[in-house]
């Protein structure tokens, strides 16, 4: 996969100011828009279109924090793969959360309370990812291992949030 950070022309880090990536995406999309290239030679027009497509892909890969964290791991050749096993402590935590969520069905206040618990856990794991990738210089092996563990947790918390969303629909 190509590096989505390079495609968008932003530094490969986890934390961005709110609206930063959106602004960058808008600016690039505007510059690459076909209307701006009606008088360009066909080759250039085609290149602008191809670049517009990869800019959209890169933005999609980076706007969501979990997917951005995975893109950062991918830059270092790391990913969460089929066949990987989750640590026991996480599985116990997640099983309990999912059972609590199941029991909270049709009780909006309880669902909201569980969501808050999970949001705090997400923030904690995102700060682990940020610690690895926001600082100057390349992350070391320990940073990367911790960031990968954090991404595994974030994937489980994301599934919880999706389930809570589905319940509230």
């Amino acid at each position, binding site marked *: 996969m190509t590096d989505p950070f390079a495609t968008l022309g932003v530094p490969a880090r986890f934390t961005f100011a709110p609206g930063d990536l959106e602004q960058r995406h808008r600016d690039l999309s505007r510059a690459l828009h076909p209307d701006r290239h009606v008088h360009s030679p066909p080759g250039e027009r085609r290149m602008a279109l191809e670049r517009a497509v990869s800019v959209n892909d890169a933005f999609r890969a980076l706007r969501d924090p979990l997917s951005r964290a995975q893109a950062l791991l991918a830059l270092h050749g790391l990913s969460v793969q089929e066949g990987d096993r989750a640590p026991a402590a996480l*599985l116990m935590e997640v*099983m309990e959360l999912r059972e609590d969520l199941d029991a909270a069905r049709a009780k909006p206040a309880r669902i909201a309370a569980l969501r808050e618990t999970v949001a705090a856990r997400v923030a904690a794991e995102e700060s682990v990812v940020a610690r690895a990738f926001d600082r100057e210089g390349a992350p070391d092996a320990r940073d990367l291992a911790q960031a990968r563990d954090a991404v595994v947790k974030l994937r489980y918390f994301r599934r919880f949030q999706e389930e809570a969303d589905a319940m509230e629909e």
Partner: protein
Amino acid sequence: MAYSDKVIEHAENPRNVGTLDKEDPNVGTGLVGAPACGDVMRLQIKVTDGGVIEDAKFKTFGCGSAIASSSLATEWLKGRTLDEAETIKNTDIVAELNLPPVKIHCSVLAEDAIKSAIDDYRKKQASRRAQG
């Protein structure tokens, strides 16, 4: 994603959903998960002093295939000895449920859950014997 009739049947009417007392020395608990999909699966067996699985329960949060795989596993486990239970392979589950290649990992997870439940039971028994 097209599910086979058997997967749909198990996912809609899962067998043996529930919990056994994990503190019970005759109960073995397996808790496994696949981070790639965010699935979590708990499978429990209750074993007689003669080494036969008299009850099996599961709880799975995951896709239909993961639920069906663990549901089927509990059905197969009941009445088997531990040694027989250990011979259950993920490929048996794949064949029975007609799982497509992208869902084979669900059956692997179920086999894993069976093995860790048996493991947990044996460890409990061993530490009990050690305590005399």
